[in-house]
């Protein structure tokens, strides 16, 4: 059981890292702000969640799992909020630019 | 050991970079950034020296913690002054 959790943890962490790497690649290669934001917010949150889950499997303690859960929650929340704010700001400034000239 | 050496080089490099920037830039924001990087470099050098077989010496850790808090206070004062200097220039 412990061994199984260990391997599961490592696998989850690798998957999470892959997600994060994908997010980084997306930010680097994608052309405009909105699509970058799109890949960043989703892959980022998923990546951190997977890594936290993996770490919880490795740690195998309730207290650690609780704080990892908290971390994931905070990352998800702040990621979503900042993503929303950046997008809103972008849309608003774009529309105001269209109107002004 | 090799890890410590890498961090030592990084710390010395941070100090060098910061000193170079402070000596060549007249930009107020860059000076603030340079001073912060300088402090971090010093902390890195100190922390590498604090490494021992039995773990990291607690006293230099406390020094660095104190240094971080001192630096945020000074940075806030520097930025407030820089903002006012810029504003006075506009008037």
């Amino acid at each position, binding site marked *: 059981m412990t061994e199984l959790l260990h391997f599961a943890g490592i696998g989850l962490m690798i998957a999470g890292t892959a997600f994060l790497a994908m997010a980084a690649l997306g930010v680097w290669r994608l052309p405009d702000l909105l699509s970058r934001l799109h890949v960043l917010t989703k892959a980022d949150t998923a990546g951190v969640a997977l890594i936290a889950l993996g770490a919880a499997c490795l740690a195998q303690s309730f207290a650690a799992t609780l704080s990892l859960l908290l971390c994931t929650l905070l990352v998800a929340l702040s990621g979503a909020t900042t993503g929303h704010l950046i997008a809103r700001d972008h849309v608003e400034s774009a529309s105001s630019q269209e109107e002004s000239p | 050991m090799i890890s410590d050496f890498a961090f030592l080089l990084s710390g*010395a490099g941070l100090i060098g970079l910061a000193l170079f920037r402070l000596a060549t830039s007249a930009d107020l924001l860059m000076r603030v950034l340079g001073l912060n990087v300088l402090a971090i470099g010093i902390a890195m050098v100190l922390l590498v020296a604090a490494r021992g077989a039995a773990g990291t010496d607690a006293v230099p850790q406390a020094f660095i913690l104190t240094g971080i808090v001192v630096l945020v206070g000074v940075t806030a004062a520097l930025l407030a002054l820089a*903002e006012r200097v810029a504003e006075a220039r506009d008037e």
Partner: protein
Amino acid sequence: MMVFDAVLAAACLVAAAMALFARDRIAAVAAFLVMGLLIALAWLRLGAPDVALAEAAIGAGLTGALLLRSAHRIPAAPTKPLPSAQWLGAGVLSVAVGGAIVWTSMSIGAAPAYPPLVAVAVPESGVENPVTAVLLNFRAWDTLLEIAVLFAALAVVAVVKPVRPRIAPLGPLMLPFARVVLPLTILLAGHLLWQGGHAPGGAFQAGAVLAGGAIALGLSGAVRPIRWGRAGLAWLSILGLAAFAVAALAAELLTGALLGYPAGAAKAWIIAIESALTLSIAATLLLLFFGPAERH
């Protein structure tokens, strides 16, 4: 792990170079923030989790917030071409200082005098985390002066009276954001404060987290700590220095030594002082960000 450390050490340098030589100011600040997080990771690798927490919360977090606040308000200096002698001189100076540091640190010095002393003294200090023991017992005078530094910084900002940061409302996200962040911040700060006695954490990290949460909420327009609480915050901000100084003298009355806590009660004294410091540090950092006084 060696490879990881080497990459991390190099990444810190690259991020610093990007911060210091970026053309765009926001990019410079962003690179500085990235460097702060990498540095926090480096502190962790160097066996200093207390410092890592403080670096992430204060060094990267609050300093980053301050820099972002000010970046667009401080216009770039007109770039004048510098004489090449100055470039050369600066380069020589930097390389010389950097080289001297590496040489000095590489040569074998005396073994640190502190670890054996700390090992003997920690059981008497009232706390188990040696860093907290150093900060609030063995060298509490350093910490008291450090609080005085924050006080002096706030006094300078009060004299300078910078412009208040612009509040940009979060829109429909405001309420849910505040509902989650506010309790989490308080929970986390309390946890860090309590944990400081036996594990990484303490008043500075807790105060910084509290201030960080309050700044986020203040900037989002979710709550207005500044509008209703400036006077209260001002009182809180000076509470730390006052309480610490009074405690130092009170301890001398009881035990005959400045900052010498009564035997057996050290833990209670430390926790009481740390609680006052947490609130005070949070209030001070908040006021350093938003400005302590209304401008006339």
